[in-house]
């Protein structure tokens, strides 16, 4: 049988885990193709708070995860500093918090190899002036911020430079199985609108929260638990570093400053489907109220949006009500597992890599590729922990960088997105590199993330997309329809958080797009036809 593409390994899933697997294979000289149903990082990798874990959050209950986190925290700082904001983190103790827990916390961190430094109330407030006045003490840990889009782009670019291939907008539609082997995977090229087969020797299932669906196509049982986490985006950072509550993990116990915003997290609720990314307003309220105990200014702050992501949780022995919902999933370990289908299920050439966290994605990849390499007879050792990623020479990311760039280029009037300091030159370069959708520009440039929620940048960028197309003969892609789709997609994340200033902003934006520009939404399909997932968010 002939296939359009032949490769040694097909990697399913374009989140950080899949892309890390692809890079690991590439560094060992193995030819591989990654298939992703939407774009890179449109699942859980794009729907999280952006915390580079020190591991301290798991130091009391889940020390295996904690150790994995601190190891990888150190590794990522070495290989991908350009995606990291080195801001540190605090665990703060509020009145009513259990001091016995604080003792366990310090001991757990010590046992897991996580350095901590105790700060007095005064020292805590010097470091974080907006902390609640009644914070009693705090522990500093090496938390950080990490930009998953940047990490994904760097790892994918490195893998592609070494001969591997990334196919985005290629959802998996089936597998061809011959006895105990998968001989090919079938994907749908969503751009060309046709199916393709990819012949392969091995398959790595790195589909995260959706890994169970891939297992089903391969004919093996694999039960994932979808653990929904809701996060809230505030319009300002409020804090210099990450702020955690020093107590047993619960709703609304973490604030992660990221770029120009702060992200409040998070809930942990078992839901029936990983595609359930709905945001109940009550969750938003709880997150704000809880985080405001640590940083009171948040209570009256401007909320930009809220979003939810699905944790890819895995337990080898799923609970009896495994596909049910509603339970708290914090008890499920955050460590990762290589599921050995050859041994467990008699499927000889597929492995699944499940569980884990963004912080540990490289280690997850190493574990599954080690297993695969052994079977393939590849002797090249894993080099992902030592080979730095393209872009790493830039050093760590700093908040003031975009402003410094604008000042260097004297580009004040050149801003397409004033909130995020995105210049006309950046958009022009991105469009020239082949991006045709505002969604792609958003993920690449952070266009539209700021307080005005795309009141100005979206139509400016749509204009630039229109200018880049061949002279209008009526057949060019309709930039206005693309803009309407973009606005509706953004709206879903805004709706649960609209009151106060953002209500005014929303109606002003409505007055611009519908009032002045007279857009009536004709280019957007009905809600029922809209995709339920696939747009990363933060």
């Amino acid at each position, binding site marked *: 049988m002939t296939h359009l593409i032949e490769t040694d390994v097909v990697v399913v899933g374009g989140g950080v885990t899949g892309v890390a697997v692809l890079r690991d294979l590439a560094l060992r000289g193995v030819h591989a193709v990654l298939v992703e149903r939407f774009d890179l990082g449109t699942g859980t990798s794009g729907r999280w708070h952006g915390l580079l874990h020190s591991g301290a959050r798991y130091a009391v209950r889940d020390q295996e995860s904690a150790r994995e986190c601190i190891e990888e925290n150190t590794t990522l700082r070495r290989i991908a500093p350009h995606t990291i904001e080195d801001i540190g983190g605090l665990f703060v103790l509020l009145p009513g918090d259990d001091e016995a827990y604080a003792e366990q916390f310090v001991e757990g961190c010590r046992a897991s190899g996580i350095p901590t430094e105790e700060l007095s109330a005064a020292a805590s407030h010097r470091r974080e002036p907006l902390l609640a006045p009644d914070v009693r003490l705090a522990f500093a840990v090496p938390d950080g911020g990490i930009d998953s889009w940047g990490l994904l782009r760097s790892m994918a670019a490195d893998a592609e430079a070494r001969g591997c291939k990334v196919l985005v907008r290629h959802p998996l539609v089936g597998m061809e199985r011959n006895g105990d082997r998968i001989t090919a995977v079938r994907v749908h090229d969503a751009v060309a609108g046709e199916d393709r087969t990819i012949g392969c020797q091995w398959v790595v299932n790195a589909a995260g929260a959706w890994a169970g669906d891939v297992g089903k196509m391969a004919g093996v049982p694999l039960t994932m638990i979808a653990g929904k986490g809701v996060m809230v985006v505030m319009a300002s950072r409020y804090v210099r570093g990450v702020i955690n509550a020093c107590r047993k993990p619960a709703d609304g116990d973490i604030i992660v400053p990221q770029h120009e915003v702060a992200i409040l997290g998070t809930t942990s609720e078992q839901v029936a489907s990983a595609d359930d990314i709905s945001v109940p307003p009550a969750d938003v309220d709880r997150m704000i109220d809880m985080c405001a105990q640590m940083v009171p200014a948040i209570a009256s702050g401007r909320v930009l949006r809220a979003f939810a992501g699905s944790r890819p949780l895995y337990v080898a022995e799923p609970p009896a009500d495994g596909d049910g919902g509603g339970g708290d999933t914090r008890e499920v370990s955050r460590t990762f597992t290589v599921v050995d289908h050859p041994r467990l299920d008699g499927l000889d050439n597929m492995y699944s890599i499940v569980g884990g966290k963004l912080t540990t994605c490289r280690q997850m990849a190493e574990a599954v590729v080690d297993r695969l390499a052994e079977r393939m007879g590849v002797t090249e050792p894993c080099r992902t922990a030592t080979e730095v990623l393209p872009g790493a020479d830039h050093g760590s990311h700093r908040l003031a960088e975009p402003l410094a760039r604008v000042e260097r280029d004297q580009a004040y009037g050149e801003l397409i997105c004033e909130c995020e300091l995105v210049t006309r030159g950046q958009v022009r370069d991105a469009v020239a590199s082949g991006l045709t959708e505002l969604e792609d520009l958003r993920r690449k440039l952070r266009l539209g993330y700021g307080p005005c929620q795309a009141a100005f940048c979206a139509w400016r960028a749509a204009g630039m997309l229109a200018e880049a197309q061949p002279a209008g003969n009526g057949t060019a892609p309709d930039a206005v329809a693309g803009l309407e789709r973009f606005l509706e997609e953004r709206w879903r994340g805004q709706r649960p958080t609209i009151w106060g200033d953002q209500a005014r902003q929303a109606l002003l934006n409505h*007055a611009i797009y519908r009032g002045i520009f007279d857009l009536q939404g004709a280019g957007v399909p009905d809600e029922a036809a809209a995709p339920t997932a696939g747009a990363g968010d933060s």
Partner: protein
Amino acid sequence: MAADVIVVGAGPAGLATATRLAEAGRQVRVLARGNGFTHWGAGAVDVLGRVGGEPVAQPLEAIDRLPEGHPYHLVGLAAVRDGLEWFGGFAVDAGLAHVGDLDRNRLQVTAFGSLRPTCLLPEPAGGMTEPPAPEPAPPVGERNPTANGGALGRPQGRVAVVNFAGFRDFSAALCANRLRRDGIDATPASAPLPSWDHDRYFTGVELARAIDDVGFRRRLAPGLARAAAGADVVVVPAVLGLNRGHEPWADLQSLVGTPLVEAATAPPSIPGLRLFAAYRARLERLGVRWQFGFPAVGVERDGDRVTAVRSEGASRVLTTRCQELVLATGGVAGNGIEANRDGTLTEKVAGLPVDGFPDRLAYLGSRFLGDHPLAAAGVRVDAELRPVDASGEPLLANVRCVGGLLAAHDPTAEGSREGVALATAARVAALLAATPAR
């Protein structure tokens, strides 16, 4: 401090009300937090552009189809006519003549190449479309069979859509592509700018100010004419002059030799800035005191009358006594009403009752470009525009509400913002002009 009438708000409704009351001899003081929908609008006078999402051809007729309690029903068609007539005269006096009338809507070309239905257009925006010959009005209450875009008149001939090189807030391709999709023969082009102070980066306001200068216009015209070669009409962003009325547009048009049409562009609206400046100049000539940047934050009462307004200054709260109070603070969009986290709404100056929602999710529709109930939230009033309680009885004898603050209309979705502002200003002018200053 004391005033006879205090008008709170300096958007389309507050400006018109203050001007008309001052013209009627009342001693007026304007308190305003900041700019309003002159700056945020399309730069036209919308009276009724859409009902149920469908474009309206004949606004006066379509008013019948609006729901009960709509401000137009409260003030009556006479006030709508009076408001538009007064505005027409005011605009001419200010050098900002408008075209159009209440019988037939026109189409305003936008930067997106859409054609939005509106009633009056400033002359620089008016040359694109001619409305069709009037048709006999259908019987009252019946749906107008011609109420669609096709009946609104479409551009004829060849259209050049021209941007000024380097101007960030307009895309000739975006505009021309959409016009072509609608069957209009439109081509995008770019006109070079003569060298000036802002060679690299500039805003629309800076470009408009430059175009005020006759020397700049003469250097600009040849390039614009080349970009427009062969076209019957030229669509440009609305930046043709800031402080000289419509004269820069008329002059540039004669230099280029082809009709120039300003397309509606994003905020700040330069036609809106022209209008705002005209109101401000007129109010100054009428001796109206003006406190800008002073949000009103409360009132003092004596029984069913407001006796004073408190406003926030830079360092203290000012109290200004008054005989009459007009609230033109806008709805949620205009900052007259606060939408709270729990679905309740708060009127921000006098604490007037506003119907809330079961929860905040009910504020807004599931589609951004759809309708949003919050946009129509506002203060319910009686026929004299006094705020009323749940049983419909007036709450305060000397307080009137105008414009976007009023309940039961959605200025954006209906395309009724300026019309409601002018009609309610006319009604208040009629009610208060007769009351002598005490």
